């Protein structure tokens, strides 16, 4: 039998990825070196002026620092919440484990818009939470959470929590129970076993989770638009604003490329982090 040319297998995936991903990215790169012209929309050029603008202008710098800070905050919160949750799943019975996993994956099955409306019902000014707090006399005026920084953080956490739990869980489940037993057997109590064995062995999962959540939050558009506040601008809505409202496609392109570079940089940093914090995973 004649061997099929191996690259033929790339065709189905390539047919999707090339026009729908690589081509738009190529346009983005091209736009970023073109020039915005108030009269003529986008003018062909080869200039780094757009990059200089987005990397020096105080407003854009604020947008980047906001975004990076938010991504870091959500990653840390998700990590802190995900550890006990994932740990609970590893120790639960078979039925309970399925239920807990299903609960964490459930948001992935529901449209993001529907979830945001759900949050309006819960944390909106007239929502369930504020009704309860007012009734109990804990607050005098409703807490402004929705359409504020806090609301955005809650939305982001909800959206990206599964992406933290799942890799962390896979890391925790890979730990051989007899390794934990041998730690106890050698004289380490529960706390020390967790700190010396479980925590270090789960680092690859934690780093993978941080990578996914950080990149997700950094480039999220829907949550800041629907749950956030314009007083705390972040990257994706800003890019949209430049492109649609200001018709500055070149500036938007440069912002997009910088965002792409940031996400790539995070991956590089994360891999370096694994190499340093979990050297045993690199050798065989």
């Amino acid at each position, binding site marked *: 039998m004649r061997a099929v040319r191996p690259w033929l297998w790339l065709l189905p995936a390539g047919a999707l990825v090339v026009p729908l991903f690589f081509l738009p990215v190529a346009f983005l790169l091209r736009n970023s070196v073109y020039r915005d012209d108030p009269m003529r929309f986008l003018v062909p050029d080869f200039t780094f002026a757009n990059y200089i603008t987005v990397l020096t202008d105080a407003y854009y710098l604020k947008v980047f620092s906001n975004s990076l800070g938010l991504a870091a905050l959500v990653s840390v919160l998700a990590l802190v919440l995900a550890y006990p949750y994932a740990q609970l799943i590893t120790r639960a019975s078979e039925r309970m484990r399925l239920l807990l996993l299903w609960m964490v994956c459930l948001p992935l099955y529901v449209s993001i818009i529907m979830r945001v409306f759900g949050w309006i019902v819960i944390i909106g000014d007239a929502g369930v939470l504020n009704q309860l707090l007012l009734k109990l006399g804990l607050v005098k005026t409703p807490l402004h959470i929705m359409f504020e920084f806090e609301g955005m953080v809650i939305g982001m956490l909800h959206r990206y929590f599964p992406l933290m739990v799942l890799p962390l869980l896979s890391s925790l489940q890979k730990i051989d129970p007899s390794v934990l037993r041998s730690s106890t*057997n050698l004289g380490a109590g529960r706390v020390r076993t967790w700190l010396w064995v479980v925590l270090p062995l789960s680092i690859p999962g934690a780093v993978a989770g941080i990578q996914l959540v950080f990149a997700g939050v950094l480039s999220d558009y829907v949550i800041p638009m629907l749950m956030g506040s314009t007083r705390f601008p972040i990257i994706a809505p800003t890019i949209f604003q430049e492109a649609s409202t200001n018709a500055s496609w070149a500036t938007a392109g440069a912002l997009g490329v910088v965002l792409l570079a940031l996400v790539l940089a995070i991956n590089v940093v994360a891999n370096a982090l694994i190499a340093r914090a979990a050297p045993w995973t690199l050798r065989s």
Partner: protein
Amino acid sequence: MTAENPAAELELRDVRKAYNGYLALDRCSLNLSKGEVVALLGPSGCGKSTLLNLIAGFEQPDFGNVVLRGQVIDGVPPHRRNVAMVFQNYALFPHMTVADNIAYGLKARRMPKAEWRDRVARTIGLLKLTGLEARYPAQLSGGQRQRVAVARAIVIDPDILLLDEAFSALDRNLRDQTQLELSLLLRRLSITTVIVTHDQQEAFALADRIAVMRDGRIAQIGRPQEVYREPSDSYVLRFLGRANSLPGAVDPHGGGRIVRIGGGISFPPDPAVAPSPDGAVWVHLRTEDITLSSVPTAVHQEMPARVVLATSLGSQQRIVLRLDDIQIVLEMPSSSIQNWDCLRIDSEVYVEFDPRACIIDKRESH
């Protein structure tokens, strides 16, 4: 080192353990004196691992006590017992180097760094791990991993060392060599040790005493030669070494004094068998306790057996005979065979054995 030593290092008193109504251990008692090596030998599910887990503290007995140096230690959590275990898969810490793996138990005991460094270095030398200190477990061979697991356990100077099928992952030559080295080491350091194994050779290679276990009970315990030569019942005989279980019958006219096997073998059982209505029995006899003769023997006078297979096992020769429809397997040292002619296929031979070597059980005949 005998069981009668009054100052028992480890004592199991009548321990019992059940899981969901399944009795894993049923009133087991065991005494170990200081430096003694005892092997718990039995098939899987006989309760030997449960016994080990009770000593390590991973399980608590439902009934009875585990006593260490006169102190009842039931309820003491595993990390507060000075009992070290070598796990079947070694359970090394994959994220720690060899040196860190070995230092683990000492760090957990908050030993000052200067002191644990010293002890780790000494143990590394003792187990011939020099030069591998900075390697991760994934970078070691099976034999090296096993030595790290042993090093990590003995470095804490445990009151009791537990070995849970610790050699089963090694190939045969390496296993023999490792068993020999460990046996020497245990004696040199005088470490009280409990070995769990299903491999009789491992038990014989390492243990001062062997406890053969069956269905959650200790069927027999004693020095290896004692247990091997004087098995308490057919279970122990069949578990240690290779044995024939031949269907026989008690001669109805002999008053229980004559047992027949097939058409040709008849012998006076020792001790005499209690006569039963149908007289059907199993005769259990080790393959090595049978010899061959070309002329009738004391136990085999009529109707010779026929050789159906003769194979060499190296130092041993294994011969399979057929008598009526009964198959008899025997093994003899190749060096003891003078008359190779009678080992040819289809040659007619007579078997010879000492009736005292047989264990006779009742047989349900249907």
